[in-house]
């Protein structure tokens, strides 16, 4: 039993890695006032690029740079759409997700680099999930303790007033979305690193779970990290309990699969009302 417990704890850490990185990306973006439904698309784009470059060049470093670059470019496109064109944040996010899902599915079936059985050269997963914990601490300190962090909070809370104080909300949001891109890039590369291959829609909605964790964490780094660990724990539990009868009853695997989502839904119903969203979220 203790062996099982250890295993669940280990896989909780591993499985919550992509969630933590993406939730931190969401933190920077939403704290600056941009609703980020597009975490999912950025992660998927990064995962696809990581595998493509890793397979093409055999260099894990270039693969990482490629993944980060792809996610930052998508992040900057997101910034242009929401800040320059004033496109609704949720609509631009869904549009980006649909396009990226479509494009990566298309590439997965046509590019030979994405079809090999050999694992592409990507840094080991442990590198990424260690980064996840380090960066969560760094993000919490940056936002609470530095001038840049306070500017970020100010712009997200009241763009009009911060404009009067001499800040440039659009510029800060561009930077935040670039940082969000970097973090989603790490998250996508982590997802790609576990198998080294690309499968269409391999992020499997984890960008949305990360966003739910961010909301449950009240748009704060450490509570969001804890929420991600909770979702990771449910996912780990799912993997362990699948196929094992509970009290003599065989439960279907789909029940366990829906566990993290049901947990997110219940948590949203129980706790969301207590958390305050950044007041300027979604505003120009």
């Amino acid at each position, binding site marked *: 039993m203790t062996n099982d417990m250890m295993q669940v704890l280990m896989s909780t850490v591993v499985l919550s890695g992509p969630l933590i990185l993406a939730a931190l990306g969401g933190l920077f973006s939403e704290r600056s006032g941009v609703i980020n439904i597009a975490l999912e698309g950025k992660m998927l784009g990064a995962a696809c690029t990581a595998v493509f470059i890793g397979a093409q060049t055999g260099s894990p470093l270039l693969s990482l740079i490629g993944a980060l670059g792809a996610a930052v470019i998508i992040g900057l496109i997101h910034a242009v759409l929401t800040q320059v064109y004033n496109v609704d944040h949720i*609509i631009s996010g869904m549009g980006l997700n649909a396009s990226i899902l479509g*494009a990566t599915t*298309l590439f997965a079936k046509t590019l030979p680099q994405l079809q090999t059985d050999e694992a592409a050269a990507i840094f080991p997963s442990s590198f990424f999930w260690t980064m996840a914990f380090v960066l969560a601490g760094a993000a919490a300190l940056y936002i609470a303790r530095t001038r840049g962090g306070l500017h970020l909070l100010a712009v997200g809370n009241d763009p009009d007033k911060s404009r009067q104080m001499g800040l440039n909300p659009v510029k800060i949001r561009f930077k935040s979305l670039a940082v969000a891109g970097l973090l989603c890039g790490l998250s996508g590369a982590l997802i790609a690193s576990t198998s080294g291959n690309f499968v269409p829609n391999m992020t499997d909605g984890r960008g949305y779970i990360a966003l739910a964790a961010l909301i449950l964490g009240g748009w704060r780094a450490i509570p969001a990290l804890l929420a991600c660990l909770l979702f990771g724990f449910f996912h780990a539990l799912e993997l362990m309990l699948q196929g094992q009868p509970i009290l003599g009853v065989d439960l*279907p695997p789909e029940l366990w699969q829906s566990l993290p*989502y049901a947990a997110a839904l219940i948590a949203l*119903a129980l706790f969301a009302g207590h958390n305050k969203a950044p007041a300027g979220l979604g505003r120009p």
Partner: protein
Amino acid sequence: MHLPWKHIWLTLAAFALIWLALVAVGAYPPEAFREMIIRSVGKPAAWRETLFQMTPLLATGLAVFVALRAGLFNIGAEGQLMVGSLASVAVALAIPSAFGMILAIVAGIVAGALWALPAGLIKAYRGGHEVISTIMLNSIGMALAGWLLAGPMRNKLQESTTTAAIDEAAYIPHVVDQMPFRMNLSLIIVTLITVGFAYWLKRSVKGYELSLVGKNPIAAKFSGAALKKVTVWSMTASGALAGLGGALMVLGDEHRVYMGFSGGYGFDGLGVAMLAGGSPIAVVPSAFLFAVISQGSDSLAQIQIPKGLNGVLLGLIIIVFAAYRAKKETHHD
């Protein structure tokens, strides 16, 4: 005249991306576009398929539109449609008659509504964002569908995970049946509902209240609109429409439910509603355009262009149109 260069650039950039995606997968773009048109509206058989696809697109498009009017994003139409279709096929299998068909439509509507209800309640009474809750409900709905289709509702005689086919007595009747073209009543049903909704929105107090809540919730609250109630019932009505779409797909066209049945219609509904802008009647031509693109790019598989292109196309169209719409809105201010 002052040309909107900023938006012309965006349109060209989107077009360039589509071009690049086609070239990257080894297709010649003009040829691909021509094939898309021919295979969606070029032949009677193509029209038949396009109009089949238009039914769920119009239902989910209207579903998203109704919620959007109240300021809510229903990303959950996909799950609501799937749950609705499962309820509908279960009833139609149990009661194989025209009466069963009517009951099956009702079952689809009710199941879709119930699947949206938690999102409405969480938003109204707990302040939890509907985008997250509807996405979670999608995943749970898909898991439920996976379980039902692999276990209790599976047709054991078949190798793939599908339910048994419903009896012909429970089919929605055809209005035109001259193969290769045929069309059943379901598209007409959804179109009439859309027209009725447009009229209701314009002429009734409740309809006005709905729009008011969407436009300015604080003003709506002060003028006496029951904010929470409107949130709950508009989300529920939205789910009901998506569920109706699932029921009509089962009874009119597919006659069974299988894994992957919903095929992204729920997500496309968001694009359909966006493209329609502020007008409910515009949901009809918008759904038609999406059906053409969807059918066109589906059939491109026959000339070795794999699936995925319609995601790129529809995603970019949503973005470009939303940008034009945002421009119009800022000009009005």
